């Protein structure tokens, strides 16, 4: 089978390419740059230059592909995020239709549901089209994917992953690791909020299933780990890895004030800011993401729990020098 992966140099895309190649799938990886830097380690991976925002570049890339895994995303400001996440998705579908691609696996995000979530989040919960640039553009992109799939007659399966961590994860591994290491993090309300974490390889497994299974076109699936953990449990792993104290906890009102006045707070205390808007939104959630639909229709069975996922992540951090190579070093 020939597949195309967009966003192939990103965290999820690169891992997907690696795994697919390992499974013997013919992979074409869409990259904007880096063609000269890394000669393809395996002949089964063909790297092509392209950009989801440029339709012409996708036509050639989509040729003879049966499935497209659309992982590319980007943009901070709303206009830019829309250009990449919405227009980019439209282009992917146009190219898919032109090339006769059977199915597009569209990587969406749990963020499309917004920040006010019920205790049990299912796919039925409406998409939110207001909020931060990422969430809004991902929601619009997902809507475009479903619509265009129907218009063009291309099968589409939408996956909405939660917080994806594992080796190379820029935010949920490296981001929080660095913040704990540099003691630039606080927990809110004792870190009792729930983190719906998902280990990268569990996501890759389900992406593959989404490409294969029949009778699921037009469906969206929330994808998370087997069960959520508390933020305290999650952050504890980092503290343990780098022999740092567990970050202090602040009550919600204080966290809110610190985030709102982070500039003033940093100026007055001479401390770098230890809470970001993102923390405020996430650490206060008490939502469990339901993966029942994925379990049923995709036979999804997450098998990497937090301990194991963090063990693998720690090994990678040590291998890359983020942590000293042996524990005795610290």
């Amino acid at each position: 089978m020939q597949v195309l992966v967009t966003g192939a140099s990103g965290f999820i895309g690169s891992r997907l390419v690696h795994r697919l190649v390992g499974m013997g799938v013919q992979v074409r990886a869409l990259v904007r740059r880096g063609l000269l830097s890394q000669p393809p380690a395996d002949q089964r991976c063909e790297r092509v230059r392209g950009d989801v925002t440029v339709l012409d570049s996708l036509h050639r890339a989509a040729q003879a592909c049966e499935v497209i895994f659309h992982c590319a995303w980007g943009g901070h400001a709303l206009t830019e995020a829309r250009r990449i996440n919405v227009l980019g998705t439209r282009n992917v579908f146009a190219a898919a239709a032109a090339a006769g691609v059977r199915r597009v696996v569209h990587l969406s995000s749990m963020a499309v549901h917004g920040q006010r979530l019920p205790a049990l989040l299912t796919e039925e919960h409406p998409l939110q089209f207001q909020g931060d640039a990422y969430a809004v553009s991902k929601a619009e992109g997902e809507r475009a994917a479903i619509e265009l799939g129907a218009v063009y007659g291309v099968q589409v399966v939408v996956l909405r992953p939660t917080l994806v961590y594992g080796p190379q994860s820029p935010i949920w591994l490296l981001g929080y690791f660095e913040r704990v290491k540099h003691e630039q993090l606080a927990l809110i309300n004792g870190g009792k909020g729930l983190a719906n974490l998902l280990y990268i390889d569990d996501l890759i497994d389900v992406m593959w299933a989404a490409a294969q299974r029949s009778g699921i076109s037009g469906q969206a699936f929330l994808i998370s780990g087997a069960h959520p953990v508390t933020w305290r449990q999650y952050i504890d792993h980092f503290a343990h890895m780098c022999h740092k104290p567990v970050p202090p906890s602040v009550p919600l009102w204080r966290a809110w004030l610190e985030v709102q006045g982070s500039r003033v707070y940093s100026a007055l205390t001479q401390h770098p800011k230890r809470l970001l808007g993102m923390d405020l939104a996430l650490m206060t959630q008490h939502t469990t993401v339901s993966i029942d639909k994925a379990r049923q229709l995709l036979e999804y069975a997450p098998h990497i729990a937090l301990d194991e996922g963090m063990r693998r992540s720690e090994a990678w951090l040590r291998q890359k020098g983020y942590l000293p190579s042996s524990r005795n070093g610290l």
Partner: protein
Amino acid sequence: MRPLRFGVVGCGGFSTIYQLPALRRCSRLQLAAVVDRDRTWAQKVARRFRVPTSYTDYHDLIGRVDAALIATPNTTHADIACTLLQHGIHVLCEKPLATTRADVERMFTMSAQTGARLMAAYGLRFSPNLSMLKRIIATQWLGSVHELTAEIGGRYEEGEQRTDFRKHRRLAGGGVLIDLGIHLIDLALWLSEELPVSVAYESASAQGWEVESEAEVALDFPGGSRATLACSFTHVPTNAVVVQGSAGWARVPLYEPTSLTLCSERARVCQTSGVQRLVFPGTFTEMYDRQIEHFCDAVMTGKEFIIQAAEVGAALDIIECCYHRSLHT
């Protein structure tokens, strides 16, 4: 010593945002005149930076200033610089110094003949984190360096330029490679202290661009190390330089000149606690201050510039090699 009387030719986005404020802060010079083809704009800029005079023709600087900064569209640099140098005016010229190797030669020959000094303004060379990186490599903290990757760029439309000359071959003399990529080529040559034995090049042009809007260059050095440089006017890359060595790696963000991430098995601090992110004092605009300071100092004392003619020529050689080859493929 009396301060240098300084003129600025070209009052586009770069001059007004970075160079003019830096020139104003420097105590070793006195801003005497600004030149821009647009008279009203020139007057406006002169008022804003409290410069006594403004002209629309750079020839008016002759006899009135000791030194000048040239920040006009790329293909115009060589003629303007040669005229000014011919009249004994020291020139600090924005990169690319010129768009052909022959022009670079012409400019340095003129400088040698008249004794007026000429320096290419590679602001990044004065960036604190890149200076630190250079020292880290020299101390062998990274072991032997085998790979350098660097990316620079941003969405051109979102920049703060006054004109879109960079899209047009006649004025820009090339695309993103000669405009931004030249920084990376210069850094790669400066950090590796070698000339490459082979050059690979790839490029793409977005709609509306007469020249390449994205480019990638790979340089292979005699010692076996490789530099991969990517530049873009159409998307935002990492804007960072990463150096990989046998004993560790270092990462330098280009637009955060006071920060550097180091991972070295030879540095004690990394042995005990892994990757270190160093943040040293300073601000983003400091590199421009340091550049102007260095230029004035070298001009006044006769010291050598840290950016040398041979290095400027070598970077242009590589660019010509890329463009020449692309014409034939």
